[in-house]
């Protein structure tokens, strides 16, 4: 039975509503339960983990898992925790995100506001770059990195991720800038602004939403990447994702230390989460901007 509600939209009866809410709760639980288990487990002692209930709260509350994951757990033969690899990841993710975003914005600006003969073809080629799977880059990239002496280095990973990411950031920025009236750039040129000052004073200040989209997208892609990391680096130069894998698969004593594993996994996931929370409100705005002229 349908009833009229205040906003005039007819909704289903109580049974339908119970079903809808039930489904939503189920979906929420599906996503939240693993997180709950991860969090609680990371604060438990090994004794509680082996003896107790998976869903119980930590008692006693222990930071040992976190301490070990950060500074003393073994990843292969090296037993200094994840900290070194965490900073490795920061060291290539931050510059790669900034570089690919900067180049994406510049490319988008040129492809929409300073068109030249063949610019559409170049954009088409870049677009193809977004469809090429990771795996196809591996061999050619490995050879190139070897030739220019950047194999097995943080600088090499920075390069790989910047190059791969530019296709995506260019696509995002180009689609955003296409909605900005060309007359704005013409006005700036009449006002005597150069190619760079037009970008700096006119285009960049109205690009925040799309730059946030680029940053979130690129940060997530690059920080979470495993494949490039495991192929192009070894030992000391590994990113945190590879180190986490090694940490989970190394057990000197033969006992699975779930608290350390969970803490390590959370440490690895935390930066992406922070980026989402800080820049996320721009994300949706950026994705929908340009649809309506404002």
């Amino acid at each position, binding site marked *: 039975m349908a009833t009229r509600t205040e906003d005039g939209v007819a909704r289903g009866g109580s049974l339908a509503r119970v079903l809808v809410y039930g489904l939503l709760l189920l979906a929420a639980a599906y996503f939240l339960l693993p997180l709950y288990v991860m969090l609680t487990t990371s604060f438990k002692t090994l004794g509680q983990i082996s003896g107790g209930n998976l869903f119980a709260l930590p008692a006693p509350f222990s930071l040992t898992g976190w301490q070990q994951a950060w500074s003393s757990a073994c990843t292969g033969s090296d037993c200094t925790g994840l900290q070194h690899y965490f900073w490795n990841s920061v060291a290539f993710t931050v510059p790669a995100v900034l570089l690919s975003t900067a180049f994406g914005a510049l490319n988008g600006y040129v492809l929409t506001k300073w068109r030249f003969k063949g610019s559409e073809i170049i954009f088409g080629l870049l677009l193809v770059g977004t469809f090429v799977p990771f795996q196809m880059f591996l061999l050619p990239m490995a050879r190139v990195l070897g030739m220019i002496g950047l194999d097995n280095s943080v600088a090499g990973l920075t390069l790989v991720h910047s190059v791969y990411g530019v296709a995506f950031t260019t696509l995002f920025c180009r689609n955003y800038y296409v909605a900005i*009236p060309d*007359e*704005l750039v*013409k*006005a*700036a*040129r*009449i*006002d*005597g*602004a*150069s190619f760079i*000052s037009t970008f700096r*004073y*006119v285009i960049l*200040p*109205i690009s925040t939403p799309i730059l946030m989209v680029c940053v979130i997208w690129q940060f997530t892609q690059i920080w979470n990447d495993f494949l490039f990391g495991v192929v192009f680096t070894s030992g000391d130069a590994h990113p945190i994702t590879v180190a986490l894998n090694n940490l989970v698969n190394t057990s000197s004593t033969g006992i699975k230390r779930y608290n350390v594993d969970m803490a390590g996994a959370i440490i690895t996931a935390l930066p992406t989460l922070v980026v989402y929370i800080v820049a996320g409100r721009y994300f949706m705005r950026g994705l929908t901007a340009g649809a309506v002229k*404002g």
Partner: protein
Amino acid sequence: MAVLNIENVSKTFGDTRVLEDINIAMAEGEFLILVGPSGCGKSTLLNMIAGLETITEGQITLDGRSVNTASPRERNIAMVFQFYALYPNMNVRRNIEFGLKMRGVAKQERGATVERVAKMLQIEDLLNRKPAQLSGGQRQRVAIGRALARDPALFLFDEPLSNLDAKLRVEMRTEIKQLHQRLATAMVYVTHDQIEAMTLGDRIAVMHAGRVQQLGTPREIYDDPANRYVAGFIGSPAMNFIECELIGEAGDTAVCLTGATDEARLALPSATTERLAAHGARRVVMGVRPEHLVPAAHGSAEAIACRIDVVEPTGPDTYLHTEINAEPVTARCLPSAAPAAGDTVALAVDVERAVFFDCDSEARIA
């Protein structure tokens, strides 16, 4: 010396030719209008003057200096765009001074210029607002202010009023005219509105299909159109075009016009008949403006009896829609003398003011 000289200029985009052999010379302080239908190449020509488009053929000189390869920055021009094109992130003050800043003018001097321009355009109290907080009319004022700040040798306007509502458009039109009288700087003004063209311009270039059809003063364009296109484009309601037969010899030629009933023969002035004879065609198109097709004085011999289909009062004038030679025409009369629809009225043509065009080429014959 001409401020702006456009010589044999053509423009192609890929394979499409959008401008063909344009020649315009502009005097110091002149107000030049480019008028024509949408897509005829007005903006393209303006952009070429500004340096925003390349010149395919020909030459453009500003103050006697060829600017074919000069960037917009190197040309002493300012431009106002149809969609305002204000920088959305900057407030009004920073919008106005942006051009000065890009040219390295000191901060203090910029401030003084902004004050002067804002005062002239009465936008002093808007200086700290962002464009989004302004109405359409205010935005266009700021856009004009941005152009004024630089004190250029030539102003370019690209349909600056076409986004405003009718009343505001008329107000701003007057203001732009006053501004021009005050500054005495040359202006090129693009519009598709023939009333704007007639009211603002010292000279008008009527453009169509990538060519300048006629370049002249508003009076010349209105009274002495170069071809049928110009005659039909300028003037509202539009000029009547009546295809008709010429009879008689040179020196004594008449046209045959048929209204509702009988054929009337109108003798033409001798100057006209000579030019018609020189051309030689027996069928021509006669152009008569509605104000030259009016109810005839009583008992006039050369009157055409017409049945009025529609009566259209506009206030000062009343327009009558009828047919001559089976073509729809508009006549004008005083509101006090207006007939009713369905009446038959005797109309007279002022043959002294009538113009004649070739049926095929549409060129002016007489």
